[in-house]
């Protein structure tokens, strides 16, 4: 069919009600994310384990979705700007509401309108899906056959560590033993798994003066927000499930950045001709995002600092388990012991879930003792550790994440021993037939555990201090076979009270027998304990939760 173009029609513009998305510049930022602890990025259930890892349907490799990462970054930036656990007010009734609204609007300029905001805008930040690589096995972990096959191979060519499967049980607090039918298992990505991350920031062009729409954020504003969010990847952000129990810890490195100036045709052409999959393949790597971006633009060298509103308390404890530590894990080899201490990524590990379980149990006892009320103790402990899941039977149940984050760390310097034990008949004091068993605890290992209380409420730090004291005093045992002395630790700790970006108070904590607290440190700790007592009393008296 032929077609005739009329002269008038060529003058018509291409504009339509959809408008134009003016773009001033495009930033591409890449880095490498490395998991520092086991991570559960859960996929759909089904198959041999209860909670499988999310995998790419094409290649089968671990998948970190852009939505997961973007959600974590948004949450981190929101924590920084408005503080922990603060939600956006629906109405602007007070000055505080107005300030909060403005702060949330600032966040939505980078991450787009929040869920349910029908009139919000899309995010100028594109966060890509990432396809992970499992870490390669260290030479010492190779089997004989593998060692033969991979003799002389480069480190990257060695076989990969498999995805881990970890068993979990629910402990009955009253009995201290596993509850029936509450065992479950799930896949975990081992520490060392890497994900290449990629972000693209589209800087909007300034709008005309006669435009009805509010002016878009400037490049400097967007960059400062983005860099603040990306900083969260260096310690603040954890990914996946059970991150308050130490899983999903990560680090980032190998930052690359490139700015394409879309105010010039050369900038457009440079971007258009770049590889869609690996646009920064040969770009230089830097240690931080700010340095990488700063090499591209003056705006990124001195970004406007984001006001930090986070209040948190961090206790870093160094524990030594001289009598051994045994968090049971099953074995598969015929010559393996019946039970052995849990390993992750080939190393002994103290799982945050075990530590949290023990601490919760002890916290309940302390709270009941101080508050003299079971319900008040339960409510208070739930506020700190999060309520126990009650399944779907209780319709009024509302889950809540734990305010206390407990790290999962590797146990170093310990030795694996394999003592043999046998069951004794209590009546005859003789041995049971075929009841010989062996165990493999990690003895003399040292581990640094971090407890972080985010947005603490009155009394919560006091309880945490009492728990840490018990831990340092060897009054609290972690893991299994505690009846034979395992799982008790001694060590030291340091308390940091962090308010905002700069204000910090550090207090060294030790076991009772060593240097006791004095001066302001003692006053601070005593004040927290007093707060705990008062809060529990309030709750027992029916005070506000």
């Amino acid at each position: 069919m032929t077609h005739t173009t009329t002269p008038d029609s060529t003058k018509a513009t291409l504009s339509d009600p959809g408008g134009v998305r003016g773009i001033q510049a495009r930033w591409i930022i890449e880095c490498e994310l490395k998991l520092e602890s086991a991570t559960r990025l859960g996929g759909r259930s089904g198959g041999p384990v209860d909670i499988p890892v999310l995998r790419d349907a094409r290649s089968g490799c671990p998948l970190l979705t852009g939505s997961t990462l973007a959600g974590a970054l948004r949450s981190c930036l929101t924590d920084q700007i408005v503080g922990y656990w603060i939600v956006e007010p629906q109405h602007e009734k007070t000055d505080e509401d107005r300030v909060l609204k403005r702060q949330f609007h600032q966040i939505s300029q980078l991450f787009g309108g929040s869920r349910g905001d029908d009139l919000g805008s899309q995010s100028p930040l594109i966060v890509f899906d990432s396809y992970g690589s499992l870490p390669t096995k260290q030479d010492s972990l190779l089997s004989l056959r593998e060692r033969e096959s991979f003799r002389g191979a480069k480190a990257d060519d060695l076989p990969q560590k498999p995805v881990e499967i970890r068993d979990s049980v629910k402990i009955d607090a009253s009995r201290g033993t596993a509850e029936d039918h509450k065992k479950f298992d799930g896949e975990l990505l081992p520490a060392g798994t890497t994900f290449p991350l990629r972000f693209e920031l589209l800087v909007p062009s300034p709008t005309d003066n006669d435009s009805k729409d509010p002016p878009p954020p400037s490049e400097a504003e967007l960059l400062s927000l983005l860099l603040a969010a990306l900083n969260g990847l260096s310690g603040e952000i954890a990914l996946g499930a059970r991150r308050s129990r130490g899983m999903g810890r990560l680090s980032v490195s190998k930052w690359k950045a490139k700015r394409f100036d879309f105010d010039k045709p050369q900038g457009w052409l440079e971007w258009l001709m770049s590889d869609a999959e690996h646009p920064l393949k040969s770009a230089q790597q830097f240690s931080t995002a700010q340095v990488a971006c700063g090499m591209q633009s003056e705006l990124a060298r001195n970004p406007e600092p984001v006001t930090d509103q986070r209040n948190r308390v961090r206790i870093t404890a160094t524990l030594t388990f001289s009598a051994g530590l045994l968090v049971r894990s099953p074995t598969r080899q015929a010559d393996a012991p019946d039970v052995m201490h849990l390993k992750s990524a080939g190393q002994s590990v103290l799982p945050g879930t075990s530590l949290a379980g023990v601490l919760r149990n002890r916290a309940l006892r302390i709270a009941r003792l101080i508050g003299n009320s079971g319900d008040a103790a339960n409510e208070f402990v739930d506020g700190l550790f999060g309520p126990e899941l009650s399944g779907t039977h209780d319709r009024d149940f509302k889950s809540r994440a734990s305010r206390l984050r407990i790290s999962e760390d590797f146990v170093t310097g310990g030795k694996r021993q394999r003592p043999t034990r046998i069951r004794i008949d209590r009546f005859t004091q003789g041995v049971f037939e075929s009841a010989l068993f062996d165990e493999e605890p990690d003895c003399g290992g040292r581990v640094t555990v971090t407890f972080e209380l985010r947005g603490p409420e009155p009394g919560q730090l006091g309880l945490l201090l009492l728990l840490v004291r018990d831990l340092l005093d060897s009054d609290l045992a972690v893991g299994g076979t505690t009846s034979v002395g395992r799982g008790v630790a001694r060590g030291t700790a340091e308390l940091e009270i962090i308010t905002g970006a700069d204000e910090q108070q550090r207090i060294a904590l030790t076991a009772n027998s060593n240097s006791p607290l004095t001066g302001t440190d003692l006053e601070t700790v005593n004040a927290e304990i007093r707060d705990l007592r008062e809060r529990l009393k309030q709750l027992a008296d029916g005070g506000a939760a």
Partner: protein
Amino acid sequence: MNHSIPSELQSLRIELLSDTTFGRGEGTAGQVDVEVDHDELGIPFVNGKTIRSLLRDTWLSMQEQFPKLMDAGRRVFGPHGELDETSILRIGRAGIDDESRRWISAAVERNVARVSSTTILAGFTDIRTQTSEDRATGAPELTTLRSMRVLIRGLVLTAELDWLEIPTADDVRCLALSLLGTRHAGLCRNRGRGHIRCGFGTIDSAEDSVKRTAQWASGNGGSPTSSQCRHPLGKSASGLAAKGNSPTPGVWYVPYTLTLKSPAIVTGLAHDPNTVSTLRYIPGSMLRGAVARAIGNHAATRAQFNSLVLGGNVAWLNAYPLHQQSRTLPAPPGFKRDKQQADDEKRWDVFDLASFDGQPDETHELEDEDGNLHWPEESLAGTGESFVTFVGTPTRITPNISARVHQQRDRAKGRSWTDTSQGGEQPHGTLFACESLDAKQKFEGAIQIRADSEAHRDAILQQVRSLLGYSVLLGRSRRAEYGGDAEIEFRPDPNRRREWPELGREDIPAGKCFRAMLVSPCLVRDPDTGQFDPAALRDVIEQKFAGRAKVQWVRTSFETVGGFNRKWRLELPQTLAVSTGSVVVLQATADISTADIVALENAGLGDRRAEGFGRFVITKHEPNGKLTLTRPDEIAPPDSLTSSPPTLIKELQARLALTALERAIDETASDVARNAKKGSLPSSSLIGRLRELLRDQSSDATCSKALSELNVWLRSADESRRLKKPAMDKLDRCRVGSKSLTSWLLEVIDSPTPRDLNLPGIAARCRLISQESSGGDDPALAVLCEPSSGSGLPDSKRQQGAAVQVTDRQLSRGPNWLKVRLIDAVLDQMALLNRQQTRQQKGVKS
């Protein structure tokens, strides 16, 4: 295909670099909240409107930096909502390649062991779920769990680029820049999904596509005109083999066939402003409009315009669905079925109300002893918008219609466009639904030519053919996805002097009843008032026969007709017309000759006859009372294809086979566990101990290791390596059918492939590739049995398995994996039964 343009510029290629959701605006109940767009075979596609909008968005963002290409941008993308349609590019639907589609079609439509379209869709896709986090609690927010289907990355889709004019180098450069800049599409495109790579080329041009597109974008691509240029309308001659040059004036009918190559919105009247409905046929006025547009508004062509468009010499008659080389007709409104008959029944017993005189009957019988017909007393229902054939067995045809939801986006805000004209943002007018005739359907119409001679007739037809070319765009939204892109084929017959020659013709003697049946809507006016009045049909017909026939009764219905004049940019007045298929039964009062009948038919009735309105035929009045309308049998496609299957089909085959296998394992495991004797199940701790061995199922090698260890546990002579006696006793006590669990486990370990799994049966359920096309082996079965030592398969099958293995995908499993997976699933089911039993004993609700 336009041969004047290099073939690489006639299609675009979309490669999915990440999982992508091209949503269809709805979910699938019980499966996903957001469904991907897919066709009736379950094959995903991207709507042409979506692609066009994506490219347009990209161009709008960059156009200011390329001022020299501004005009090219307008030519390629065209202004919004422009009636002049100055855009020279039409973008079709992006889908998989035709060969792969043919394979899937054969599997879905074959008569035996069909693969369902749902299964096909599942083979192309994965499902992602996500929740929102509540900031106040840090826990998942209630009611935010949602699931979304995604196309698995790696899929390549291609769309046809239809250049309506030879593009200039700038046009191609503009499009190439837009293609290179379009890197994100679909839902959640800012959150990892929908990362795409676009370029010119076909599915096979993976490496060249980006390189060549970049060259075109740099202006170094070459000339957009092919060296093999030939005129697209090179085929000449009218096709009417005129015998001599007879000066006889007369009326000829030239039938034409329209074959839709893409969906077409033949705009009908819709009641919802945001909904566009389609007619089930293609009105002649559409072709007339296409001819008018091609002639243009020039003084030099005024005579031609009058002759071809305004009804001087040519009338454009409606195109109705074609069934087995036979033009159908809209079902007459007098055809009524018993209301009890379901819509989808293959046979409908239909009452032809034109057979009845409308008199009630005292005997309540349809036909009395004298053979007189009486009005049926059943509850009657219409035949819907179906078409019928009157040649051979009466057949009921229903054109295939699809509906899609489109959304107008605000480019900057990345969400639905909202109206800001009245102050504040009003979220309305953003969603609209389009109904369209599906592609690959055929319609037949005719043009009526009044000419002074056969030479004159040939000249007119030659003009029409030249103006329309080989294909014609129809209806709305024809620069993307829709427009029909209908291939038009004239089938001239020098002896065709009647529109419906197959409906018999003979002289009508006085006193005999006959029928006048409308074959298109008819606009008639009241003789007294001059206003349109469909009820005036009776009088108009009688006037036509000039007293030689008297109307007995009429069986009519009315419909509203309208239209749109692009030149005036106005809708035509909507008026009531008599519907197609309406029947007037007349009785001749004098003899009526065949010549008179033909003259009456050729003249037509009422207004707008040049557009095809007012057509009728005179037929016999044969009061049958009842007739049977059947739906046509589905054409049986070949059971399988014998050529070598494309890579995409091999991948899809492997994915379907594995999905079927996983399901079969779970079903088998459930059966085995439930067959175990109650109370004899091993304890959960023992089951857990056994399952611990089977955990690492990442490769066939790890599975092999697990099986050999389990073998040692169950039958080693060394007691220290065997399971302890109490544990062995528990396994022996557990009865699975007629054997112990120990025996069952050993049997699975020892067998080449688990006997409980019917692998050939599973393969048959998901077979896309036949044994013939794969060289004698069954690829679906081979996928299930990856070549491996001890697989138990013949060598030929192992080799076939290797052939089916697909690079870069973990789509193959081995026999050891099969065994481990089955044993693990059975033990898992047993643990579940244990848990249920414990709960029942404790009286806890399961």
